[in-house]
């Protein structure tokens, strides 16, 4: 999906939205929104009354006609808001739909055999069918790789054109229907029923078609319905009060008062706000499986973040060369660089880079030096290089020390063999010169580095300990500020790491997280979430592995990485298509933004009513109690213009607020009190004042053009 941002005024969205504004007038659509449904019922009834008056020749038909016209316009504006919000996702959905149709699948008769398959339409695939996908084929449905390795282009889903590797077993076994295998072949066991694949769900989510009302939205709808009912009482009692005073009020005027009072502004925009919130996530390449999850994101109290990749850069980097006594720092750097020239791991590269930056040691060509690289193995836990007659080793401190002391105790020039990349064996002479002093020194340095959160790598040349390379977890730039911001938002961050507690504590302190879980296992991760939840907190986390699935399911907001396993994706309630765990923070902000927008526009909508009373009440009773004219503080021209202005303003404000509803009210991490004060000032006080000005302006305009 392309991350293009289409503006609200994009004609590609606006034109179809106008059409669907009319289609949405269908009462079966409107009934989902109590306030707008009431408005529609009122509009229909008054239209019928107008038709009757046209036939029988009632009074003031022009005025009635205008009011009724504006009732319908109000409805259309509300539908338009929803249609525009939906339209923003439509284009994306269409391109996705392209990916879904016309795929033929190679269904295997026998999962163990690769040659016997039958071509069936993708839509006929059932869960547990096994299909073969070969280079160039589209993967027909969601599933899990059970055999093979392949590179897959997932651009249709993620918008990322670089292919990814999918293989059986491990955490990268999930494949998504609609993506394309570029090389090799895989056998895929289908996991989704037709029509409920990831792609289907994405399309549904983006279009808003499957949008279920969220719990808070339901509660808000109840409140709006309740307010509507209060205004039914307030308005329905007026005719009798007027009769007591010896007058009568026309139905049209009562309808105008009622419609301006009921919370049409928020009623019209509520669903657009919800769709836009989901859409913001989609644009961010995150798919929320339910609106409930988006809401929960706003409420999150505790954020569990994996250290690697989220808080620190994925890899450790060399930051220092620490020689033992008697060894020059440059010599250590030189040896370290030599041993790392052929080491393609990020750690190895960083050593070369550091040696160049700090001591200007240039990269040398291995071949011209006649050097043999000795790669890292799990047994030796060392790597290095044999060059000329000498051998250089670097590796975990204990491993290097063990190797050195083994030679010391043997006190012989024993060859230390290690399989070289070329398959040749290099005999290395390590002289027994390592003194007990330098061992102690190395251990002391290693301990210091460990305490600081780093990883020590010992370096030895020919059995002589040279010193230690300090490998450090590099905390991502700006992450500390992000955590400080989260703290101001009231969110506690917990770092999850497999490191030992000492290292974890050091990195936690550097990154500025509130807490950490060291030596994390899936079990204690799950336990941590449960403990937090027992304290009443909402927990968000992200994960990708199958062993993350229980924790993802337990968390209130579980963001699964798109690269993750099927189990992880099923367990989480959001999927991050970019597989970027840092996004949790933005997801929380988007959740908060959604809730804030909803609250702000509700407040604005209710606050608007004050001015509408001042416009309509004096106009309504002008004939019965002219004294009430004193309440006409806006100085509206005539009773008709006052009522018409109120109803026109009521309709126009919906359109005026569509951009805000779609964009959302910006969240600021300034603490709940100041944030509320700010929003109350803008949307509460503003909501009281704006309509006074707006209605007056409309009044000026319509009297000028002679509408009333």
């Amino acid at each position: 999906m392309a991350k293009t941002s289409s503006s609200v005024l994009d004609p590609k969205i606006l034109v179809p939205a106008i059409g669907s504004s009319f289609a949405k007038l269908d009462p079966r659509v409107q009934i989902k929104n109590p306030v707008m449904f009431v408005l529609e019922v009122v509009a229909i009834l008054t239209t019928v009354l107008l038709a009757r008056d046209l036939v029988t020749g009632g009074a003031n038909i022009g005025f009635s006609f205008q009011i009724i016209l504006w009732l319908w316009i109000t409805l259309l504006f509300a539908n338009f808001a929803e249609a525009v919000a939906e339209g923003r996702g439509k284009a994306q959905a269409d391109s996705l739909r392209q990916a879904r149709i016309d795929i033929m699948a190679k269904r295997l008769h026998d999962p163990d055999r690769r040659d016997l398959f039958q071509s069936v339409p993708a839509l006929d695939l059932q869960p547990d069918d096994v299909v073969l996908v070969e280079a160039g084929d589209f993967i027909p449905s969601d599933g899990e790789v059970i055999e093979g390795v392949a590179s897959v282009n997932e651009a249709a889903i993620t918008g990322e054109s670089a292919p990814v590797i999918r293989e059986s077993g491990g955490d990268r076994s999930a494949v998504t229907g609609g993506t394309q295998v570029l090389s090799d072949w895989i056998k895929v066991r289908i996991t989704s029923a037709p029509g409920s694949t990831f792609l289907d769900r994405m399309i549904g989510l983006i279009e808003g078609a499957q949008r279920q009302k969220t719990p808070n939205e339901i509660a808000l709808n109840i409140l709006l319905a309740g307010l509507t009912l209060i205004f039914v009482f307030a308005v329905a009692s007026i005719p009798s009060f007027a009769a007591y005073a010896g007058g009568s009020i026309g139905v049209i005027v009562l309808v105008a008062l009622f419609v301006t009072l009921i919370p049409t502004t928020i009623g019209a925009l509520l669903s657009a706000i919800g769709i836009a919130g989901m859409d913001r996530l989609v644009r961010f390449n995150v798919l929320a499986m339910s609106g409930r999850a988006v809401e929960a994101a706003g409420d999150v109290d505790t954020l569990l973040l994996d250290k690697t990749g989220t808080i620190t850069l994925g890899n450790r980097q060399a930051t220092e060369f620490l020689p033992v006594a008697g060894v020059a720092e440059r010599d250590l750097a030189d040896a370290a660089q030599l041993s790392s020239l052929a080491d393609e791991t990020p750690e190895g590269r960083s050593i070369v880079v550091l040696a160049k930056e700090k001591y200007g040691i240039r990269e040398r060509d291995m071949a011209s030096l006649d050097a043999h690289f000795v790669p890292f193995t799990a047994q030796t836990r060392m790597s290095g290089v044999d060059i000329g007659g000498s051998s250089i080793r670097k590796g975990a401190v204990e491993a290097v020390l063990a190797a050195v002391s083994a030679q010391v105790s043997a006190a012989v020039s024993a060859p230390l063999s290690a399989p070289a990349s070329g398959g040749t064996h290099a005999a290395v002479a390590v002289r027994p010169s390592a003194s007990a002093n330098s061992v102690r020194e190395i251990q002391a340095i290693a301990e210091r580095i460990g305490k600081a959160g780093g990883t020590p790598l010992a370096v030895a040349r020919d059995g002589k300990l040279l010193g230690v390379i300090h490998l450090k977890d590099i905390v991502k730039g700006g992450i500390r500020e992000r955590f400080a911001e989260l703290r101001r938002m009231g969110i506690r961050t917990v770092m999850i790491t497999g490191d030992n507690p000492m290292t974890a504590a050091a990195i936690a302190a550097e990154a500025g997280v509130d807490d950490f879980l060291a030596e994390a296992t899936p079990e204690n991760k799950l336990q941590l979430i449960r403990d937090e939840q027992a304290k009443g907190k909402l927990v968000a986390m992200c994960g990708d592995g199958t062993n993350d699935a229980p924790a993802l399911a337990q968390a209130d907001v579980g963001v699964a990485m798109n690269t993750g396993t099927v189990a992880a994706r099923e367990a989480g309630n959001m999927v991050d298509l970019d597989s970027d765990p840092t996004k949790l923070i933005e997801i929380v902000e988007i959740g908060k933004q959604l809730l804030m927008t909803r609250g702000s526009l509700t407040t604005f909508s209710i606050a608007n009513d004050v001015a509408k009373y001042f416009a309509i009440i004096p106009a309504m009773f002008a004939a019965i109690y002219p004294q009430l004219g004193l309440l006409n503080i806006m100085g509206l021209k005539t009773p008709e213009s006052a009522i018409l202005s109120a109803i026109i303003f009521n309709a126009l404000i919906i359109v005026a607020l569509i951009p805000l509803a779609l964009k959302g009210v910006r969240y600021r991490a300034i603490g709940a009190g100041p944030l509320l004060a700010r929003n109350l000032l803008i949307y509460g006080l503003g909501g009281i004042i704006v309509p006074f000005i707006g209605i007056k302006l409309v009044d000026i305009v319509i009297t000028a053009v002679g509408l009333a």
Partner: protein
Amino acid sequence: MTVNGWIQVALYCAIIIALVKPLGYYMTRVFNGEVTWLRPVERALYAAAGTNEREEQHWLTYGLALLLFNGLGFLLLYALQRAQGALPLNPAGMTAVAPDLAFNTAISFVTNTNWQNYGGESTMSYLTQMAGLTVQNFVSAATGIALAVALIRGFARASARTVGNFWVDLTRATLYVLLPICVVLALVLVWQGMPQTLGPYVDAVTLEGGKQTIAVGPVASQTAIKMLGTNGGGFFNANAAHPFENPNALTNLLQMVAIFAVGAGLTNVFGRMVGDERQGWAIFAAMGVLFLAGVAVCYGVEAAGNPALHALGLDGASMEGKEVRFGTLASTLFAVVTTAASCGAVNAMHSSLMPLAGMIPLLNMQLGELIIGGVGAGLYGMLLMVIIALFVAGLMVGRTPEYLGKKIEAREVKMTLLGILVLPLVILGFTAIAVVLPTGTASMGNPGPHGYSEALYAYTSGAANNGSAFGSLTGNTLWYNLTIGIAMMIGRFFVIIPALAIAGSMAAKKTVPPSAGTFPTHGALFVGLLVGVVLIIGGLTYFPSLALGPIVEQLAMMAGQTFAAGN
């Protein structure tokens, strides 16, 4: 307005503020079962009633117990009035009360309204007054307190199934809170010259040689609970304007203090029970702001006087319908206090207040009497508004709404709206019918907007369980007896049940610990928000009805227009 007047207001407020903490502390201990000096009596009562005081109730059971108790109380009071002619303690020889009036009065006292379509001294026997009305004055007040405590427990507890035991709360409220304070208050009132006797009415020979019957009776004891329990039902028809029911300035002050005492103290109980006294003070502060605004308007308009009378050379504040002993401030302050709380006792005729000043008592009641309010009822009324305020505004901090760590969800919103919708439905509905029915308009004492205000006031007072009357409406008719009776019943129980449901669902919820992202509900911002929401919701609901009554009347008065009968 005079400086002296405002000093009196300040004095009154200072006394109330000083009472909040001690009363809150004491009542918290009472409802936590830590006050035990009447233990034997308490135990005997539980034994007699056959309840186990340790056994707590689910909100539904609590509610059923409450309804059962009030239902039986209604039947008993109705029977007592109908049979009083044949019962003892009836020296004045009162006969049976008419069925519709007995119905209205029984509901009125059971619902803590004390709307009186009768004159006490000319209708009720001593037995009815003491065993019927005074008993209900105690237990209807205790019912309100019990309910408030149950709702407080709902907010204070987490993951709990129960909200307390109605019988225990009722007993403790009566035994430890209402009775002791009333005994002391009644003695002080007797000392200040209030009658307290079971003897017959006194006959006096006037200067002209005529005979005058002076009504007396157990006045002090009933007055004490009438104020403390925010009942408001006077022993005499003239209520607190009667010299025997309010002899002097001191008793006037004491009575006003008694009206607010328990309701103000309950805000502190709330704070203490939820573990943060500031939460209670915030609610109290919101009530205080609304109260002072009401006093300022009411006192200001009254002190300005009536321009129509000024034109006739009658300068100064309008004194019509007021006791000369109390004057403008003491009368208007009393009027605001009695309607802010759901007391309904009056020391001046509200009908005679300037139209806009008279609107304040009306509005106080329409807002739901949540400014201190009826004992208990005020707090739960205000908590309903807190839920609405936080539901709407709470979203604006970017979290789903919560109060005291409890999430406000669809169910609570639904129940809150049920509780809030009842009042406008009953008030506006019945008024709309009454003002167009001949039987409704026939009772009005005035033409024009004022007559309309009378009907509006009557239903408002009934539905809000206040009980004060505008004064010039003839309420003792079949129509008004029945409809106001129904209004009182709906206004009481259709708020109580949703409030209890909220208590139940709140108690069952987990408590989310507050964080920097949680909206603090103990500061000035929250107070301002709450006041704003109360005024906007209340204002939007009643603006048309008030515009056609007090507002237009005031505007007309200022324009020099009067309304002749038949207009």
